[in-house]
Each structure stands twice: as structure tokens, then as C-alpha cells.
């Protein structure tokens, strides 16, 4: 650690003794960070360890209570993002900072617009952005509005935003959390290119294999403090995980052999349209049995979301049938499906999964709020609800354990646990998990994976939709792959490979792959 102190000039970024206190927590406690010029530097740590907080201070979004920052050896005072931009710092935020009704190019130039007088010189802007995007291979549709742009492209737009401002130091806060493996690979290509052109990159991720693949050095944080400075070439995921969590972590879950039973859910020739009225699911059929995990792999935007919404009563199926224990439930509404034992851990936990302005105890009864024992003759039994939710918070290790806290004030991982607690405790028959571990730290992932397997062992039929191939492979008993609304093939995890599934995700049918035609 002391290594850099004499020679701050070698470092693109030096943060020293950074302390930031929030009302309830010391988010950064005398944190030191040293990032060499031209390297890719990882910051890892559990949810809430203080990574984002640290970077927000580097970018001037919040100001430290104590500590100093040096950029390229010069002490700087970064009060706001403008200062950071002036110092050549660019940040891609954990939650994208894009204006959804503006176009890509408008988002990129916003705040540093080329102009003629007061007028926006949009021609020049487009030209500049095009050049920039070609130089780094960051291909985007510059005229498209963000709301019509897939996440992978949004990510590239975010990076272009920083490059457009001439950033030499790029902060990427969990950039891969929402990306598919392919997109992640593309991102890494770009990062390598940026590194070659001399840029410095700070990379935050919960995925240790990514950290191993792309970075040069690693800073590990835990509870607001730095617990380790590692050279990537001299460490391994197990060691990093231990620095992060303070104990040994299972990086791969133990899975009992499968014992699937009767068929629970059957989907026949299902057709679903997306928000724009285009066919998103095109005649899909499959089934799931009790005690089985069916993994659905696929690049985001290939109809998985629409499929799940149709299965859970949130979207109308245009055609086809869905059977639950041999009862037809096509286009039944969410309440009826829930009553029949279907539960759903939604993809977007804050939009669908929780009423953020409700306290925990209200959130854990969502969907069953009108039923005994929570509600008797239309009146909520508050005492019962609170006791019940306390127990649930205890059982599912939601932190803090107080169910009176608003859901909005829980961290992402704990929000996910609240949803999990609610859905798992309602004795499901079918359980649909959509991206259940997105953005969560390894400890939380471990916990959720264990619970999914526990459900399976309780003979629940499970559908798992995930973009993480690793997650799909380690949990699923069967895998189907979706591409442009169709199923490319069905495989057993032990009989296939990442390559094969990857090819299907890219649009090749299984028969074709196996028969050697690509």
C-alpha cells in the first residue's frame, strides 16, 4: 500500500484517507485507492461495501468528509461532475444515466454540445460521435431513442459519453451486470482497445471470473474499508472471495441428483406480442415437471420477458395454451395464477417486485394481502402481518431485520431477499425466477442459489431465466435456449457445452449444430 505514496506521479488516480459518513453508516472509512496509468483496476466487494460511494466521490457526485484525491500526480478538488470531467474522468454508472426520450447522440453530447451560437449543431455532433464510435468499435444507432435501445447498446452509449468528453480515466460501475456473455466479451474487447490507447479504467464487478479475465490489479473492499490490494496475475477467485466476505465461499453450489415427477406446467404453441405490437414469442412449447429446474437461456430481448409476463398473467397471449396441472390457465390474470400456486421472482425487482414506498411488512404480503390469515373480512390483521413479516425477515436473513423499514431503504440484495421470502413462503407449485441474482454479490448469490435448489427438492417446478450461463449451467436440470422468440433447442447441462449453448443463443438450431451445419 505504501508503495505509491512517494511516487504519486505514476498513478492516474490516487485517493487517500477517503471517509464518507451517511446517517446510518460509514460508507467509506479511510479508504486508499491507487490506480496506475493505463491499467485496468478492479474494485470488488459485497453489496454495500462502499464501492459506488467511493467512485461517486471521485466523480464529484458526492463530496468526501475527509481525504484527498490526486489525478496524474496533481492534487485536485472535485466538487461536482464538471470538475471531474475537466480532470478527464468519466463514469458509467451502475444504474444507467441516460435520458430515455432523447436519442443516443443527444445523450452523448448533452452538456458539451457543439453549437453555432445558441443553436445545437446536430450535424457536427453526429459526425463527431460517429467518428468516435468507429475509432473504438463502439457501434450504436445514433438516431435511436434510448427507450428503444437495447441495454448492451446503452452501455456503449454510456462509454461514448465519457470518451466524447475526452475522458482518460473511465469508471465502469458494474457494467456487466446487465450484459449477456457475448455483450460482456464485446465490452472487454472495447476495454482492451481503450487500454491500448492509453486510458485508465476502474472496473467494478461482482463476477470474479470477469475480474480475473480483464483486470491488472484489484482492490477489495469490505464494510467501507479496504481489505486487500492484489495483483490479478498472482491471485485466484477463492482468495478474492475470502477477502470480500471474510470467510470461505462456495463458488459453485452442490446439487443433488434430479428426481423430476409429474408434469406441472405445459406451454403449447404460445404467441405473445411485445409493447410495440410485434411478435416477441413465436409459437413456443415446453413443459416443466415437479422437482425440476428448467433453465431458459438467451440473450436479453429475445422474448424471455414477454414469455414470462404471459405465463404470469401480466401480458396477454395472442395464441396458444398454457396448462397448470392440466387446468388451462391461458390469459388468466395474475391473481388467479397466484391462487393456483404460481409464484414469480421478477426481472425488475424495483419496478415489479416491490412497492418501494411500502414498508417491508406490506411487501411480504403483496399478492396474498386479501387472504386469510392476513386479511379477515376485508380488514388487515396488522398484528399478525407484522409478526409474520418479522419471522420471515429472520428466516431469510433480510438486513436490517426490521420489517417496518421502507423497501426503498433496503439495499438491492436485501430487496431481492424480501421478494424471495414472499414468493417462497407462499407454498408454490411453480416458481419462475427471472434474473434472480442480477447485481448481487457472491454471498447473496450463494444464498439465493441454495434457496432455489431447496425449492426444487421440495418438488416445486421451477423456471429459471438467466443471462448468466454459469448460473444456468450450475442450477438447471434441463436447458432451453430462446432466440428471436423461438426455441433453438433443448439440452441437458451435463451433455452440452458453453459453446453449444452460446451458438444457440446466437440463432443456430440445435439439430443444425449437432449435424455439423452452422
Amino acid at each position: 500500500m505504501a508503495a505509491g505514496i512517494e511516487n504519486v506521479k505514476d498513478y492516474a488516480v490516487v485517493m487517500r484517507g477517503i471517509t464518507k459518513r451517511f446517517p446510518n453508516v460509514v460508507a467509506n472509512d479511510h479508504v486508499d485507492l491507487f490506480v496506475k496509468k493505463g491499467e485496468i483496476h478492479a474494485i470488488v466487494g459485497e453489496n454495500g461495501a462502499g464501492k459506488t460511494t467511493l467512485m461517486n466521490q471521485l466523480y464529484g457526485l458526492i463530496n468526501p468528509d475527509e481525504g484527498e484525491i490526486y489525478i496524474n500526480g496533481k492534487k485536485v478538488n472535485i466538487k461536482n461532475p464538471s470538475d471531474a470531467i475537466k480532470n478527464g474522468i468519466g463514469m458509467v454508472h451502475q444504474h444507467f444515466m441516460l435520458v430515455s426520450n432523447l436519442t443516443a447522440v443527444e445523450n452523448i453530447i448533452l452538456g458539451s454540445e457543439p453549437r453555432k451560437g445558441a443553436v445545437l449543431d446536430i450535424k457536427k455532433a453526429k459526425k463527431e460521435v460517429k467518428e468516435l464510435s468507429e475509432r473504438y468499435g463502439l457501434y450504436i444507432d445514433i438516431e435511436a431513442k434510448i427507450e428503444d435501445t437495447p441495454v448492451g447498446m446503452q452501455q456503449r452509449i454510456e462509454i461514448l459519453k465519457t470518451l466524447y468528453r475526452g475522458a482518460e480515466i473511465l469508471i465502469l460501475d458494474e457494467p456487466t451486470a446487465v450484459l449477456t456473455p457475448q455483450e460482456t466479451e464485446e465490452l472487454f474487447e472495447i476495454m482492451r482497445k481503450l487500454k491500448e490507447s492509453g486510458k485508465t479504467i476502474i472496473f467494478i464487478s461482482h463476477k470474479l471470473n470477469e475480474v480475473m479475465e480483464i483486470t491488472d490489479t484489484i482492490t477489495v473492499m469490505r464494510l467501507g474499508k479496504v481489505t486487500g490490494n492484489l495483483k490479478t496475475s498472482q491471485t485466484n477467485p477463492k482468495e478474492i472471495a475470502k477477502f470480500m466476505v471474510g470467510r470461505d465461499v462456495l463458488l459453485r453450489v452442490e446439487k443433488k441428483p434430479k428426481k423430476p415427477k409429474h408434469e406441472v406446467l405445459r406451454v403449447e404453441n404460445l404467441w405473445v406480442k411485445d409493447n410495440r405490437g410485434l411478435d416477441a414469442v413465436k409459437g413456443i412449447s415446453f413443459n416443466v415437471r415437479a422437482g425440476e429446474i428448467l433453465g431458459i437461456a438467451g440473450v436479453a430481448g429475445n422474448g424471455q420477458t414477454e414469455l414470462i409476463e404471459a405465463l404470469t398473467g401480466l401480458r396477454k397471449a395472442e395464441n396458444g395454451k398454457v396448462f397448470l396441472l392440466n387446468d388451462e390457465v391461458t390469459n388468466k390474470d395474475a391473481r388467479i395464477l397466484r391462487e393456483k400456486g404460481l409464484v414469480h421472482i421478477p426481472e425488475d425487482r424495483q419496478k415489479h417486485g416491490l412497492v418501494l414506498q411500502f414498508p417491508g411488512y406490506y411487501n411480504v404480503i403483496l399478492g396474498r394481502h386479501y387472504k386469510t390469515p392476513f386479511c379477515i373480512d376485508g380488514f388487515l390483521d396488522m398484528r399478525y402481518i407484522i409478526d409474520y413479516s418479522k419471522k420471515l425477515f429472520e428466516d431469510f436473513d433480510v438486513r436490517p431485520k426490521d420489517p417496518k423499514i421502507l423497501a426503498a431503504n433496503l439495499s438491492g440484495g436485501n430487496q431481492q431477499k424480501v421478494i424471495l421470502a414472499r414468493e417462497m413462503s407462499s407454498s408454490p407449485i411453480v416458481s419462475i425466477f427471472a434474473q434472480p441474482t442480477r447485481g448481487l454479490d457472491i454471498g447473496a448469490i450463494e444464498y439465493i442459489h441454495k434457496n432455489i435448489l431447496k425449492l426444487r427438492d421440495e418438488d416445486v417446478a421451477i423456471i429459471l431465466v438467466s443471462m448468466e450461463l454459469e448460473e444456468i449451467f450450475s442450477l438447471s436440470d434441463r436447458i432451453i435456449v430462446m432466440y428471436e422468440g423461438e426455441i433453438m433447442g433443448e439440452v441437458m447441462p451435463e451433455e452440452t457445452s458453453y459453446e453449444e449453448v452460446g451458438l444457440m443463443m446466437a440463432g443456430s438450431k440445435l439439430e443444425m449444430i449437432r449435424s455439423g451445419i452452422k
Partner: protein
Amino acid sequence: MKKRIMKINLSAFIVPVMSVIIALLIASVVILLIGKNPLIAYYEMLKGAFGSSQDFINTIVKTTPLILTGLAVGFGFRAGVFNIGAEGQMSMGALFATIAGMNLGGFPPYIAIPITILSGMLMGALWASIAGFLKARTGAHEVITTIMLNWISYYLGNYMVAGPLSVGSGTPKSPEIAASAKLPVIIKSQSIELTPGIFIAILMAIVIYVLLEKTSTGYEIKAVGFNPYAAEYGGISIAKNVVLAMAISGALAGLAGALEVMGLHYRYLGTLTSGKGFDGISISLIGQNHPIGIIFAALLIGSLRTGSNAMQFAGIPKHIVMIIQGIVIFLVAADRIVKTILTYRKKHKAGVEK
């Protein structure tokens, strides 16, 4: 936990009270400028609002509809809809309560009164449901539709009393409602009468509180208001709850209209609402959308209004009260001016303790 509740309530009171004090200070400058003595003016105002039993009754009579329109708007806010149409719903409620009340002469009060009340509530609910239905069905913004419905009810109401329903040669008014549909007078001082209307209003505040906090219906309405996506995911129908919320909101406004008819005017008049629906907006927000807070907010505005009439005897024009009311509400909007000072210390302390 107990401590926290106390604190919250205290600060909820502090802001309006401070706002009133500041507003009175600012207004006193204005009063001085027209060469009057603000102390005398305020004394008259206070006396006018609470000085005698008659004044006090007047204040209560004025407060009653304000509680209900405040509840109406506040309930809408809790459900995520901005019901700017309480004015029209109140008017339609009054109109239909009148029509019912006119025709109930043959029935005893214990039948006539509830039916009249219910007709008012029902009509208010129906009128508001138009906006709720259009929002749920076509996505039409409720601010547009309720503003438009306000105007339609205005024209319809005035048309009715000038045309089909009009009686007498002088006044644009409907006939009186039947005696059995009038609310009984519980206190009478000369021609100033107090009816149980206020109790109905307070009762409704409690009913709304219970509905919102203790029932699954309230749970659903709030869930839809906060996050319609999550509500839908939880098997709660957005459309049904939007319509229901508008209907309940409208029923409250309609009740305000019905009570004005049954306890005060005994007939429909085109001008009967005179902005009370709009007052409901500020009252609900001063009362922090909380049914009990709304009662006090309504009392505040109600007493300012009664006081202002008396203040005219001290030669102060009625407009000064609108100015005072404007400043009070403005300061309640910008409540952080008061709150920041209070919470800044608290925050600081908490931060250090941790």
C-alpha cells in the same frame, strides 16, 4: 416507535402553525400600508371565527365541506390520481341530493336523510368515475378530464336551476328539499344553525383512515398509487382500483355537496361550491394527505374564512384573507424552510452518534 410518531405529528403541526404566524406578519405590513391597525384587524378576525357561539358555529359550518373536499382530493393522491375535479363532483352531488330530497316528502327522516345523502355520494362517485374510467380505459389524463368535467357540471348545474329545476321568480334556484330530508338542527342561535354535518365529515375522515390503513381495499389502492406495475404483478387490478379510487374520491366530494344542501341551503344553487373543490387541493396537502391532518387543515382554512368576514367591520377588505391564505399555503409548500432548520440538527446528531 412511540417517540417517533409523536415527533412526526409535532412537526406536522409546527409547519402550518409557523406558516400562519409568518403569513399574518407579512399581511400586517399590507394592512399597515392601507392605514389600518393589524392588531385590531386580527382581533376582529379571531373574534369573528371563535368569538361567540354563533361565530364558532359558522366556522364549523364552513369547515364541514372543506374536510370532505380535502379528503376527496387527498384520497385521490393516495391512489396516484390527481382529482382536480372535486368542484364538479361536489356540485353534481349537491344537484342530485336536491333532486332526491325534493321527492322524498312522503318518507320519514330516517329514510329520507340517508337516501338523500346516498344520492349525493352516488352522483359524485359517478361523475368522478367518468374520469377514472377514461383513464383506465383509454389512458386519458385525469387532470384534463376532471377539469373539463368541472366545467360541464358548472354549466349543467346552472342550466338546471335556471331552466328545468328553477322555481320562484327571483332566484336561480331549485325548489327546497322536503323537510324530512333536511338535517336536523342540533344547535340554533338566531338564524345560525348547526347540523350534524360536521360529525358526518369527521366520521368520513375516520372511515377513510380505516379504509386506507386497515383494509385490503386500501392496501390495493395505495399499492396502485405507489407502483402500478408492482400492484399488477401482485394480482391487483389497476383499472378497477383507479376507477374505485376516483369513485370514492368523488363520493366524498358529492357528500360535501349533499351536506351543503341538507344542512345549509336546503336547495341547489349554481354557485354552491364556490371553489371549495379547489380548496380541497391545498387542504389535503396541508394535511399531508392524512385524514386526520385534513380535518385540522380544513379547520384552519374554515376559520380564516369566517374570520375574514368579520374583519371587514374593521375596514379590511375581504381580499386580505386570500392573501393570508395564499402565504400560509405557500409556506406549507416550501415547508423545508422550517423543516430544514429542525432536521438539520437532528441529522447532524444522528450522523455523529453512529
